């Protein structure tokens, strides 16, 4: 088989050291994703059982938001969905990367890296949007 000279002579390896780092990363990532799943479950329970009491309290203390309770619930649901999806990607990264290293399986390892890439992508978009909203809110507050 002829060698492709565009490719480097020595490829990078997931050696013992890198493997240990990825395994420990996956251990912490799994812990974080499980904590997030539990937090999501608690938030959903609160939303289901206390949504009416919360909207009543909002209308009482901030009457200007009287008609907007549905909007706040919708925002909360979207937030929960984003957190759930990112936690799911983190969980996939954790389990697949660990499996890929232990089984020496390139395809499973790559699936784990794909989950990590998607996790960083969604997290990046969310942090950028948060920063933009923070700057807008700060500028409008200073203007008052």
């Amino acid at each position, binding site marked *: 088989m002829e060698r492709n000279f565009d490719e*480097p002579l*020595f*490829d*990078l*390896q*997931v*050696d*013992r*050291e*890198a*493997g*240990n*780092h*990825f395994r*420990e*990363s996956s251990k*912490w*990532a799994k*812990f*974080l994703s499980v*904590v997030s799943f539990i937090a999501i479950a608690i938030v959903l329970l609160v939303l289901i059982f206390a949504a009416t009491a919360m909207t009543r309290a909002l209308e009482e203390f901030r009457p200007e938001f009287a008609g907007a309770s549905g909007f706040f619930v919708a925002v909360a649901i979207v937030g929960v969905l984003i957190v759930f999806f990112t936690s799911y990607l983190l969980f996939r990264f954790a389990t697949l990367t660990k499996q890929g*290293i232990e*089984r*020496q*399986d*390139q*395809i499973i*390892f*790559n699936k784990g*890296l*794909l989950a*990590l*890439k998607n996790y*960083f*992508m969604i*997290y*990046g978009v969310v*942090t*950028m949007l*948060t*920063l933009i909203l*923070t*700057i807008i809110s*700060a500028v409008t*507050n*200073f203007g008052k």
Partner: protein
Amino acid sequence: MNTNASPGDFFSFGIDAHSRELLKNSAIWAKIIAVVGFISAGVSVLTTVINKLAVNANIFAAIGPITGSLIIAAITVSLNLFLLRFASNISDSLSNMNQQQFNSGASNLRIYFKFIGILVIIFLSLFLLAMLFFIMGTGLSG
């Protein structure tokens, strides 16, 4: 699909073209997150300082919130520093084919997740402690 690792060599398989592409994209997004994190920390400190100094005539009353925002900013910056190191080490290692840099990048990803994990454990412990004090307080008063 098993790769070209010998059975005795437990830890060693290659980073193929697909892995390289995924790691490269992960590094790009990680770098964006880190930079946005640094900017967010700066903006947060700036808005706290301006808000507190504008509202409080007494400068000593503003010290608490400003210190709090500085501590949060310091945590955010150090956390994102590990993410930035992961991103730059991984992208450099992919272009230089430097195994040591690749391992250093993987180590920084490990520290990043460990850092968040420890912060979550501290936060949960404080939350549980606060809940315990609250329950004890209501129990004693009731």
